[in-house]
């Protein structure tokens, strides 16, 4: 199977280039990551992140034939040859397929992604009704792979100011949590022309999310709650 992979080692290369690979696959090679591991075995200078190899850790997000996704859960049979692999767009490249995710995590941290509740701690745990718990479905599953935020032009342009789809999905995850008491502070923090309202609902995030989540809907819900608060 033929591949074209983005290569860039800032210590050696003047500028990035695309390197061609032709690998013989074994019948057990089903996912793109299997092929990448095989390529790495023959050319160990190729750098990429991977860990769980089953779509849970979010390490091996990359741009696959022009669309962001996780290499470990992308079946090889669905890919058109030559398979063109590039690092996630919009983030600084550290080397080859590895990008610097600092900006992405900075935005994630800015929404305070933890439960805020000032009530005294109960003996065991803070309980939720099954209905309240259901509110979190489609929100808590995010693995922070950055496929969504790095496919968003608003995030490309203002990564330092726009929270991005992943961060906003996480923000809504805590706004929607019946145990969280900081809803007003969270809404105040997002009431900003850059932080939230740079989203123009083009839904690239929904298109690429490897977990099938819908950040655009979460962003819409945040706006709904803001309207409820204002009107």
């Amino acid at each position, binding site marked *: 199977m033929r591949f074209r992979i983005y290569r860039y080692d800032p210590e050696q290369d003047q500028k990035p280039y695309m390197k061609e690979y032709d690998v013989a696959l074994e019948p057990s090679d089903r996912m793109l990551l299997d092929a990448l591991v095989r390529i790495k075995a023959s050319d160990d200078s190729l750098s990429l992140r991977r860990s769980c190899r089953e779509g849970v850790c979010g390490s091996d997000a990359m741009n696959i034939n022009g669309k962001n996704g996780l290499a470990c859960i992308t079946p090889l049979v669905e890919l058109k040859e030559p398979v063109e692999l590039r690092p996630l767009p919009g983030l600084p490249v550290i080397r080859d397929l590895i990008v610097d995710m600092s900006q992405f995590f900075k935005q994630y941290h800015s929404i305070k992604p933890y439960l805020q509740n000032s009530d005294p701690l109960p003996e065991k745990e803070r309980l939720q009704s099954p209905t309240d718990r259901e509110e979190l479905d489609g929100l808590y599953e995010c693995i922070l792979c950055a496929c969504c935020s790095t496919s968003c032009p608003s995030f490309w342009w203002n990564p330092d*100011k726009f929270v991005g789809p992943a961060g906003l999905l996480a923000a809504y995850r805590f706004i929607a949590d019946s145990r969280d008491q900081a809803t007003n502070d969270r809404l105040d923090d997002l009431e*900003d*022309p850059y*932080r939230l*309202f740079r989203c123009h609902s083009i839904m690239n995030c929904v298109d690429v999310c490897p977990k099938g989540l819908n950040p655009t809907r979460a962003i819409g819900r945040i706006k709904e709650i803001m*309207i409820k608060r204002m009107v």
Partner: protein
Amino acid sequence: MVKRIPVGAHYGLRDWLVQRVTAVVMASYSILMFLVVLVQRPSHYGAWKSLFTSQPMRLASLLFLLSIFWHAWIGVRDILMDYVKPTGVRLAMQVGVVLLLAAYSLWSVQILWSIQ
């Protein structure tokens, strides 16, 4: 000076809402105009003139134009926020756009009410 990226302007929802509401106004007016032309079929100058001299039509047209201007303000401001980085230049351009749109609004009133 410390290089900071300040965010948290505490506005945005109103503009977002305004953009939706003005869009509805513009769409409604467009459909209304289409229907009026379809039904009345104004074929000569006099018919067009009488169409636009009625008070409800004047008000509807004014509402439509003000919606365009308000909608345009938010859109143009967003573009300036994305492409004009120096704060002073951006502020000056934003003020320019606001003044221009305000002038357009007054001009619209003058035009609409000048049809006798």
